[in-house]
């Protein structure tokens, strides 16, 4: 039995080899760096901002296209940046009415229809706000399911290959939050697919335009999808004052509590990295206090409004007016405008207001 003595038998050698082989990849893949919080303003060409922002107010058609600028290497951008509004298309649409689906469709139609954004065969991601799994959508902590469903239908109708809907809640599992919000059922009925975000696909991503943060773990599919539609619900937040389109993007990153240290600028930096092609603000039921989690119907005000624009800054600025505020007063809207990510000057853009009866 013990003849082999202290010599390494073949079996032992193979065991050792397998163990080492398993161990090496495990050790080698742990080296994810912690996100840098060092400001690096040199990455952002300040003078260029000023020039372009004048241009943009004058003519939205010249929306900056960072891919084309050689002085900003390594830009991470969604491949499809929406075409600016053409003739007869509104820059921003505000639709009001009893039926959330109808006003969503009306708002998108005023922008030129979903065909303006979606081309046949596109891979679309819709990012609603499903921040917690506490209450159903009536409590206005999560985006209205009908608004999301309408967008799914519009995308599929415009020829999208697949439409995925996702968010990562900060409390409760994604699955239970999807179910409780009512969005899971609505999306399934509309033909879309709910997806639980895969932790392995949050990867350190350069933010070349970032003024405060230049790297952050971002969900890769949001960067690689053909089209990202941002569907925040307008609601109260004690630090940001309001949760709107910019704040909604915290659902596609990790370490979101580290954003709060410089919320305004950091959200603007994220907007520069993610650049959703279309932003649809759900203000059908609005949470006025005790946000962003809610739980009291007394805090909910029914506004029956949907705001849509390709310009996230303009959409957020317009939504702020529903609360009697301006975009200037919301730190992240102001910071995003300063970075030329959109305009908060609502008087300079073509807004179409629609009432659906």
């Amino acid at each position: 039995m013990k003849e082999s003595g202290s010599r390494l038998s073949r079996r032992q050698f193979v065991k050792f080899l397998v163990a080492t082989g398993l161990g090496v990849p495990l050790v080698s893949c742990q080296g994810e760096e912690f996100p840098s919080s060092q400001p690096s303003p040199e990455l952002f060409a300040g003078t260029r901002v000023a020039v372009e922002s004048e241009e943009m107010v004058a003519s939205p058609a010249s929306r900056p296209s960072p891919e084309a600028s050689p002085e900003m290497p390594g830009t991470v951008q969604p491949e499809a940046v929406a075409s600016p509004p053409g003739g007869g298309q509104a820059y921003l649409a505000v639709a009001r009415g009893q039926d959330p689906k109808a006003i969503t469709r009306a708002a998108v139609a005023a922008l030129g229809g979903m065909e303006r954004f979606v081309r046949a065969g596109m891979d679309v991601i819709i990012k609603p706000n499903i921040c917690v799994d506490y209450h159903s959508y009536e409590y206005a902590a999560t985006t209205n399911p009908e608004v999301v469903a309408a967008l799914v239908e519009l995308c599929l109708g415009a020829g999208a290959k697949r439409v995925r809907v996702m968010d990562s809640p900060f409390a409760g599992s994604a699955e239970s939050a999807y179910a409780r919000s009512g969005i899971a059922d609505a999306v399934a009925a509309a033909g879309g697919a709910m997806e639980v975000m895969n932790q392995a696909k949050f990867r350190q991503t350069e933010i070349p335009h970032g003024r405060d943060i230049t790297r952050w773990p971002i969900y890769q599919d949001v960067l690689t999808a053909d089209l990202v539609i941002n569907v925040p619900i307008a609601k109260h937040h004690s630090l940001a004052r309001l949760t709107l389109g910019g704040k909604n993007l915290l659902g596609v990153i990790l370490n979101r509590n580290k954003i709060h240290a410089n919320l305004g600028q950091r959200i603007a930096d994220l907007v520069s990295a993610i650049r959703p092609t279309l932003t649809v603000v759900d203000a059908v039921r609005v949470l006025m206090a005790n946000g962003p989690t809610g739980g009291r119907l007394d805090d909910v005000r029914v506004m029956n409004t949907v705001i849509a624009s390709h310009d996230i800054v303009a959409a957020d600025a317009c939504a702020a007016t529903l609360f009697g505020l301006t975009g200037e007063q919301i730190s992240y809207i102001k910071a995003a405008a300063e970075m030329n990510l959109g305009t908060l000057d609502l008087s300079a853009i073509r807004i179409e207001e629609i009432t659906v009866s």
Partner: protein
Amino acid sequence: MSARSWVRMRRAVQAVFLLLYLILFVGANSRYPHRFGADLFTRFDPLLMITATVAGRVWVAGLWLAGLVLLLTLLFGRVWCGWLCPLGTLLEWLSPRRKTRSRRSAPPQGWRRIKYVILFFLLTAALLGSQSLIWLDPITILHRTVATAFWPALQYTVTEAERFFYQFRFLWGPLDWIHHRVLYPLFQGVQPTFSLGLVMALLFAGLVLLERWAERFWCRYLCPLGGLLGLLSKLALLRREVSEGCVECARCAQHCPTDTIDASRHYQSDPAECIVCVECLIGCRVEAVGFRWQLPRWRMAEWREYDPTRRTLLTAAGASAVGAVLLAIEPGVTQGTATLIRPPGANLVDFSARCIRCGACLRVCPTQGLQPSLWEGGVANLWTPRLVPRLGPCSFSCNACGQVCPTGAILRLSLAEKRSTAIGLARVDRDRCLPWAYGVACIVCEEVCPIAAKAIRLEELEVQTVDGETQRLQAPRVIKERCIGCGLCEYQCPVSGEAAIRVFRS
């Protein structure tokens, strides 16, 4: 049926039951805590059911399943051990092959008594209302090990491998498919982390190592459930018998995993030690060995020298009583520990007496906030669950732990009841809190507070900046009447290391 078919059948039954155990384990998660009755094996276990009923002074649901096992034992002997017990099966599979083991080194026969000592110890403790050592039960050992060590380790390995391969973008297509179709359904949300995973794995490894000393070491010498079923097996109707035709070739003895076939007794065995594995049938060339019904000439099996005596019983009971008293005077028991936060509803019952330390709640907790305790609640509360909010809060929309608790130690609260049941109270540490201590803006605890009207109020605070300017900030204060101690604030607090807001037992 031939001897070989019986053996094959037994091995098949073992595999089926181990598989069933694993399916039930994997199937139970926070969304479907009770899918297919995840606690089936706990309810099969008579030792757990008896002690939980006696110590907890409650009628435990599903008690009759344990009665089924008792009945099986009275009919066929220790078939639970040889055919059904998933821990026994696992140890059997992990045991070195019989040929390679030296038979000389087996421990003395007297060691077989240890399991009875442990059994009497546990039963007396249960009478006195203590379950502090019930973690020696085989089902809880297996469940805790799988839940806190093996499964998390497997998930970690798979997840890290996945992360590694995600570096290569061309693999994303198949990886996405694997993730959403296989890995996510299997593992669900967060990577489980358990403070005592390694300790549990080492204890299990110890049992496996003992297999090298003697086959079925745990089942033979230590297992208290084996002791209980062994005593009943003395009365069993089906027993192993050796007929006159025996040629004393000793081959049956060589096949016996519990080494109970005794050459000096004409190769008869002790029904209390025999696990009815029927391996001995294979060895017999003259078909002298068989399992036969004892009716109508039934007599209780012979009492062996290693079997418990009245002295054993009294000594174990006495020691148990002394131990129970010593545990009762621990400060953790008399005073409670401020950081020992129990799952929701556990405060409303005599938790320590009802909890069987099985780890079912640890398995389903979606945030991994429930952790097994080592010394935090005193020795008396070893392996009981406690909430560590910094690792994971008590999820506002989850009551899974109460759903799976097999003994009602964690009450089966409805979601509405659970949401209003306080398990602790949050406390702001103003020397660490960003606005209070450093004048830095932060409202994360208030933001995440799940209470509809918020259990954290933001106060206006005036602070001086470095440049001497006055700045207004919001700073958190806990509203005692509303806080339920879920710990989401502690979990999300961005202060590194220990949180600036912490939950303590209220």
